[in-house]
C-alpha cells in the first residue's frame, strides 16, 4: 500500500513546482479571477506574491530561462489586465499594489545581491535565486508598481473629490461663529447635515476606510505614508482653489472653520501615527490662507506680518484673497486698494509662478524602499480556496 509520508517543513525548499502548461491556470486563478473581497480577504498579506515568487524560484532552480521569462511576462500582463478591468475599484488596485511591491521585495531579498541580504536568516540566504540575475525584470516590476500607484491615487481622488468642497468649506460645524451671513442676515443654525451633503466627518471616515484597507492588504508602511501625503495634498489644493474663486468663502468665520477642519485632519494623522509622513505640510497653503482671512489687514505693520506669514502662498493668491475678503458686519471694512498695493510692492522681488490655482493633477513621485520579509518561504501553505492544487510544494 502506498504510504503517505508527510514531509517536515524543514525538508521543504520554499519552491513551488508547476508544469509549463499550467501557467495559464496559475495566473488565471491567482490573479485574473481572485477577488480581494472574496477568498483573498482571509489570505496572509502578500500571499499571491509569495506564491508567484516560489514558482519563479523553481523555474530558476531547474535552470529554465524560458519558463522564468514566460512566468514573469504572464504575471505582469495579468496584473495589468485585471487593473484595466477593475481599475476603478480601490480594493482591487490596493491589493495588487501591495502584492506587486511584495513581489519586487522578494526579487531583491532573494537575488543573491549582498546589499539586499543583510536582514536574511541563513535559511533565507539558501533560498536565493540559483541561476538567473533578474535585475532587469526588477526594473519592469518597479515600473509596474509606479503605474499601479498612480492608478490608486486617481481612484482615491475620484472618491474624495466630491466630498472636499462640501466637507472642508461649505458644511459648518462650529456653532455660533457663522451665525451671520455675509449679507448681514442671520442664518438658521443646524448641527445636522442636509441629506446628501458631505461633512468633514465624511472625509475622515473615507480616509480611515482607505487606510484600513491598505493595512489589511499588508501595504508597506512607507508606501501608506506616501499615499496619505498625496491624499492630504489633494484635499488642501481643491479646498484652496475653491476658496480662491468664491467671495462667500473669504470671511473671518470661514477662516475659523477651515482652521478647525485642518486641526481635525491633523488629529486624524496623530491617531494613525502619521504625523511625520509630510501630509500636514501639504496643507500649509490652505492654513496660511485661513490665517490671512483672520488677521488684521489695515496698517503697514499688518502688511509686513502678512508677507512673512504667507510664505507658502503666491503673491497672486494673497492678492486674490484680499480682494475677495468680505466683512461679516457693517463695522468692518473691505480691504483697501492701498493696502493691497502695499502687499504687492513688498512681494515684487519674489521669484515665483504667477499661477493662481494649485495644480490638482500633481502627483508626488513615489519610491518603494526595500522592505524584506521575515516570512520563511518553506512554511507557506496554499489554501485550497485558491484552487492551485496543481502546484507542488518542493
Amino acid at each position: 500500500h502506498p504510504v503517505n509520508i508527510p514531509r517536515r517543513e524543514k525538508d521543504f525548499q520554499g519552491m513551488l513546482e508547476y508544469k509549463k502548461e499550467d501557467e495559464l491556470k496559475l495566473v488565471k486563478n491567482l490573479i485574473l479571477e481572485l477577488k480581494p473581497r472574496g477568498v483573498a480577504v482571509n489570505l496572509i498579506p502578500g500571499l499571491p506574491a509569495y506564491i508567484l515568487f516560489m514558482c519563479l524560484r523553481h523555474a530558476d532552480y531547474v535552470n529554465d530561462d524560458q519558463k522564468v521569462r514566460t512566468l514573469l511576462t504572464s504575471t505582469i500582463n495579468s496584473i495589468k489586465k485585471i487593473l484595466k478591468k477593475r481599475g476603478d475599484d480601490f480594493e482591487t488596485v490596493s491589493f495588487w499594489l501591495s502584492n506587486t511591491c511584495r513581489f519586487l521585495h522578494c526579487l531583491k531579498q532573494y537575488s543573491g545581491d549582498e546589499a539586499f541580504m543583510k536582514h536574511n536568516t541563513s535559511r533565507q540566504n539558501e533560498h536565493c535565486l540559483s541561476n538567473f540575475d533578474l535585475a532587469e525584470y526588477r526594473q519592469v516590476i518597479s515600473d509596474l508598481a509606479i503605474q499601479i500607484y498612480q492608478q490608486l491615487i486617481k481612484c482615491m481622488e475620484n472618491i474624495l473629490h466630491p466630498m472636499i468642497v462640501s466637507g472642508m468649506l461649505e458644511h459648518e460645524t462650529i456653532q455660533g461663529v457663522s451665525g451671520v451671513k455675509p449679507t448681514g442676515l442671520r442664518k438658521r443654525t443646524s448641527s445636522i447635515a442636509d441629506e446628501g451633503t458631505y461633512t468633514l466627518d465624511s472625509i475622515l471616515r473615507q480616509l480611515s476606510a482607505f487606510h484600513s484597507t491598505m493595512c489589511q492588504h499588508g501595504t508597506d508602511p512607507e508606501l501608506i505614508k506616501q499615499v496619505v501625503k498625496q491624499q492630504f495634498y489633494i484635499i488642501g489644493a481643491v479646498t484652496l482653489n475653491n476658496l480662491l474663486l468664491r467671495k462667500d468663502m473669504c470671511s473671518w468665520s470661514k477662516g475659523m472653520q477651515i482652521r478647525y477642519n485642518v486641526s481635525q485632519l491633523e488629529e486624524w494623522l496623530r491617531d494613525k501615527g502619521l504625523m511625520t509622513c509630510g501630509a500636514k505640510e501639504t496643507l500649509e497653503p490652505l492654513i496660511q490662507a485661513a490665517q490671512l482671512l483672520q488677521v488684521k489687514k489695515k496698517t503697514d505693520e499688518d502688511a509686513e506680518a502678512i508677507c512673512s506669514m504667507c510664505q507658502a502662498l503666491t503673491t497672486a493668491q494673497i492678492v486674490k484673497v484680499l480682494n475677495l475678503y468680505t466683512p461679516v458686519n457693517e463695522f468692518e471694512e473691505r480691504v483697501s486698494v492701498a493696502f493691497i498695493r502695499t502687499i504687492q510692492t513688498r512681494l515684487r522681488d519674489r521669484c515665483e509662478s504667477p499661477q493662481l490655482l494649485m495644480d490638482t493633477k500633481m502627483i508626488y513621485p513615489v519610491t518603494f524602499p526595500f522592505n524584506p520579509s521575515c516570512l520563511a518561504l518553506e512554511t507557506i501553505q496554499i489554501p485550497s480556496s485558491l484552487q492551485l492544487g496543481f502546484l507542488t510544494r518542493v
Partner: protein
Amino acid sequence: PRPASRPRVLLRAPTLAEMEEMNISEEEESP
C-alpha cells in the same frame, strides 16, 4: 547549494511598454 564562484546569468527584459505591445499583438493574432 550553488557554488559562490558561478555568476548568475543576467536575463534581459523588455520594458513595460514593449511587453504591453507584445501582449496586444498576441491578443490580436489569437482568434
